[in-house]
């Protein structure tokens, strides 16, 4: 097992202790597994809470701070957190202006956040929830679990976070979050499987020289296995898959996201190909972010997320943000 850990059972708790040591600007409750910005609850502000299984860092804990999330709830590796965490987080950050739950569309996340919303509302917290479901590799139908939530989560958290920071009311923040969801699509590719601490060996067997198209961020195999493709071919395939489900009339935000083990050097090279395809398809690029943001432990591979933005979304994207994983503006 090539892991920098003590034992599988304490991986998440150990990481939270390490986060606490590195980030005095956060309140990290390692026992109850809640990460909260230190100045919460922020008066007059809608609070944003997200969470999900661990193993996707910096998502979500690395996105807690001014301009983005108020709190994050990390579950076990690839396992949705439990409702108790979300209820505790909501109580810690609610300033009386309501809480928005940002939920990636996985059965576990959906059910646990749903239970938490009911419990939090019982305690007098106003809760709204938005479901992120951007992954076009999964067919969206009422007969399936629906599209997965992946890279677009970053766009939703950033833009809704900026809206909340500006003092917009809950319904408006929620509506903007839904607009981002509706405007975003993703497609992912794996060049290797990942290894979870609990299993200790790769989640599936992928011989070198082959790749998986249409993977999620939990070490699942994708929709299809193929012989290895070049960066150029992958960009053609991924961007076209996204554009098939999204027809951007407006400029797009581009996220070229690494799955964890693909070097930044390769991600930038891949971005050159993504830009080429977008140019060829006549899609204007407003902003580009390249890096490991929504990861799948040590999986090699990448995903492309596009989000079509109007003037307001772009302004909110550009607004200052100050978190461990994303920072800009002044």
């Amino acid at each position, binding site marked *: 097992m090539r892991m920098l850990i003590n034992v599988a059972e304490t991986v998440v708790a150990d990481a939270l202790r390490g986060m606490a040591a590195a980030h005095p600007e956060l309140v990290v409750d390692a026992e109850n597994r809640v990460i909260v910005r230190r100045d919460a609850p922020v008066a007059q502000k809608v609070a944003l809470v997200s969470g999900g299984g661990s193993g996707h860092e910096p998502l979500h804990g690395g996105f807690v701070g001014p301009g983005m999330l108020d709190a994050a709830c990390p579950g076990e590796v690839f*396992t949705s957190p439990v409702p108790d965490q979300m209820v505790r987080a909501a109580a810690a950050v609610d300033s009386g202006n309501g809480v928005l739950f940002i939920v990636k569309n996985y059965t*576990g996340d959906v*059910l646990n956040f749903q239970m938490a919303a009911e419990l939090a509302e019982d305690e007098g917290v106003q809760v709204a929830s938005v479901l992120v479901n951007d992954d076009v590799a999964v067919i969206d139908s009422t007969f399936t679990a629906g599209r997965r939530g992946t890279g677009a989560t970053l766009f939703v958290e950033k833009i809704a976070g900026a809206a909340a920071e500006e003092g917009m009311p809950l319904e408006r923040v929620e509506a903007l979050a839904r607009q981002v969801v509706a405007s975003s699509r993703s497609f992912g590719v794996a060049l290797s499987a990942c290894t*979870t601490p*609990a299993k200790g060996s790769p989640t*599936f067997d992928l011989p070198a020289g082959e790749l998986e198209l249409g993977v999620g961020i939990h*070490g699942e195999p994708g*929709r299809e296995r193929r012989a290895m493709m070049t960066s150029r071919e992958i960009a053609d395939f991924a961007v076209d898959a996204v554009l098939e489900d999204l027809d951007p009339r407006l400029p797009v935000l581009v996220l070229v996201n690494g799955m964890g083990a693909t070097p930044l050097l390769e991600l930038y090279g891949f971005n050159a190909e993504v830009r080429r395809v977008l140019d060829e398809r006549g899609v204007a690029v407003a902003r580009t972010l390249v890096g490991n943001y929504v990861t799948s432990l040590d999986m090699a591979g990448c995903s492309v997320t596009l989000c079509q933005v109007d003037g307001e979304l772009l302004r909110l994207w550009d607004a200052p943000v100050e978190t461990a994983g994303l920072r800009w503006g002044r």
Partner: protein
Amino acid sequence: MSETALDAAFFVRWMTAAAAVIDREAERLTELDSPIGDADHGANMQRGFVAVAKMVETEPPATPGGVLTAAGRQLISSVGGASGPLYGTLLRRAGKALGDAPQVSAQELRSALGAGVDAVGQLGGSAPGDKTMLDALVPGVAALATSFDAAAEAAEGGALATVPILARKGRASYLGERSIGHQDPGATSSALLFSALAEVAK
């Protein structure tokens, strides 16, 4: 079906036996969750049933319904994932259906579990044939009308029968056609719960 009355101690023994068999089979459950899921089902169930076993040992509820309700709450608070809320709801709803009777019959257990299984389908938006835990739970509960052993056998059969199914719910559904040929981990853990029940009923 035996007409013995089942008391709180029986339900405590069931939960303890369930924790033991889940612990023994955790690695297999995680293995099953690897090709068509995210390789955590064994760890999830283990974490949940360790908490349940501890609860029934340190503060055992006084009634059958109390044991199942508390066990369900424990699963919800400690498992996470899809299986936490689903199994938690199964046991909580069954526990509530048993009310606060100090003893219950096997038939009362069967109908309580039936209510729990319905709640799972409702919460998960799922039905038998979707390649989920329901494919073991539904035949298991039905066969409780015959005997505990028959229920264990039927649940096990239901779990095995998930192999050729194309998944329509849960993570396995993301794989489309590629989900065919793999046994559902949740159906497998459901069968284990029935086998623990049959074991303590002997």
